[in-house]
């Protein structure tokens, strides 16, 4: 069985064709680089996405946050529910962990930006 995919790893967005036999990826074509093949194999088994969103600070502002690696696509809304429960103590340093193993995944939620107390 053939399946068409768009590689999302870089902005080139190569159109990939994946050959699947008995639930296993046997061939990937259309990729410009190796990361495309890796992506296609993963995408056909379990799609993974990096989550980027915002979290609330204790003084009612928002700060950009992201997961430090991709999480299974089907957990995105569970991750969002967890982020939306936090109120962050300030100050926060870019890269510091906000939620460890968010929604039970292998990824940590980290801050994308420094934010000081009360400006």
């Amino acid at each position, binding site marked *: 069985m053939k399946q068409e995919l768009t590689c999302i790893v870089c902005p080139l967005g190569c159109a990939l064709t994946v050959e699947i036999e008995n639930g296993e990826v046997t061939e990937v074509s259309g990729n410009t680089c190796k990361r495309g093949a890796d992506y296609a194999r993963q995408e056909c088994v379990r799609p993974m996405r990096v989550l980027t969103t915002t979290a609330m600070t204790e003084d009612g502002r928002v700060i950009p946050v*992201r997961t430090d690696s991709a999480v299974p696509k089907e957990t995105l809304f569970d991750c969002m529910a967890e982020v939306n429960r936090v109120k962050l103590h300030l100050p926060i340093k*870019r890269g510091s962990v906000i939620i460890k193993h968010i929604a039970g995944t292998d990824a940590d939620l980290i801050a994308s930006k420094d934010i000081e107390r009360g400006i």
Partner: protein
Amino acid sequence: MNREQIDLIIVGGGPAGLAAAVAAYDSGVRDMLVLERDVNTGGILQQCIHNGFGLHRFGKELTGPEYAWEYERMAAERNIPIRCGTTVLNVSPDKVVTAVNSDGVSRIEAKAVVLAMGCRERSRGALNIPGSRPSGIFTAGTAQKYVNCMGYLPGREVVILGSGDIGLIMARRMTLEGAKVKAVCEIMPYSGGLARNIRQCLDDFDIPLKLRHTVTAVHGRERLTGVTISETDEYRRPIPGTEEYISCDTLLLSVGLIPENELSKGAGISLDPITGGAVVDEKRQTSCPGIFACGNVLHVHDLVDFVSEEAALAGKSAAEYISGGLDEGAPLDLKPDGKIRYTIPQRIASRDEDVKVYFRVDNIYKNVKIKVINGDKTIFAKKLAAAAPGEMESLTLTGAQLAECGDAKLEFVLEAG
């Protein structure tokens, strides 16, 4: 009024302005100032909290604020002075910059100026959608600022007009925050956004992309209650009888970006009607000697990585100009054929070095050849398996190829094959 003299002024502290400042510093300029209208630097990157930036420039995937931070750090390490909260009112052809902030108005005489003001979103007024004037209609970028910087969700049921990248990114963003995005309408037969964004922002969340569709009416008095969408024909005209009503409380417009060139016009700089930005040479110098332009104020880029690259070139060129001027040989004018909509640069002033030319096509093409013709000689030809308006292409003309040009015109032609 304060009066100052300075070597270099950079107008704008977004990704282009900061990269230009860093490059100018590294080329020896010390006496410089970056003027930024907003309260902090980083420009539009601060609200682009999604990832996907920096793969070319830093070899890793960063979010917008992280990409901005890399440049803020470089500028800070070099002690580059930045004045935020400062709006430039005027740049004169002889490079006197008039700016205003809470301390008052200042006039600064500069030896060189880099214009890095970025771009602005096309708004509803520029689109002429009939209907009343309810609240709930935003440009996608405004909604992005509300959600990502201020923590407000502007609506619950959303239709997005235009499939540019900001529209696609906002479709995902609003969905993650609990809104229902009912449709993304695109008047063209193809999306203006990156393929990866169609996949990860629309397909991931089963959001329908309606190609050849536009919004033909908005409904509601106080607040938007719905929109009418229609299919469009090949001339982008709505087809009668195809109207469909979609109830929604929010309409986001992602219908294009316009370089913000009021200051350039004031300085009498020649603008390219296609890009909406200045006409520049390969050093990114405008028609006004000593005034350079880079980033989205010059032409709208797909990737910030290319903005940084172009801005670094402009910053370095400004440094060369300050320390003794740029050589100008016999200039070449670049003439795109229309299928190639525009080239950057539009002019090549010196023929000693290799020049990378960026261009954008007007439609989706497969298996085409781009030719660069001077007089009756083809000095360069390259095959392209695919080209699309959404993706900027480039080619490099070598100094040797440029040196053999007898005619002052370089034609850029797209052919089948």
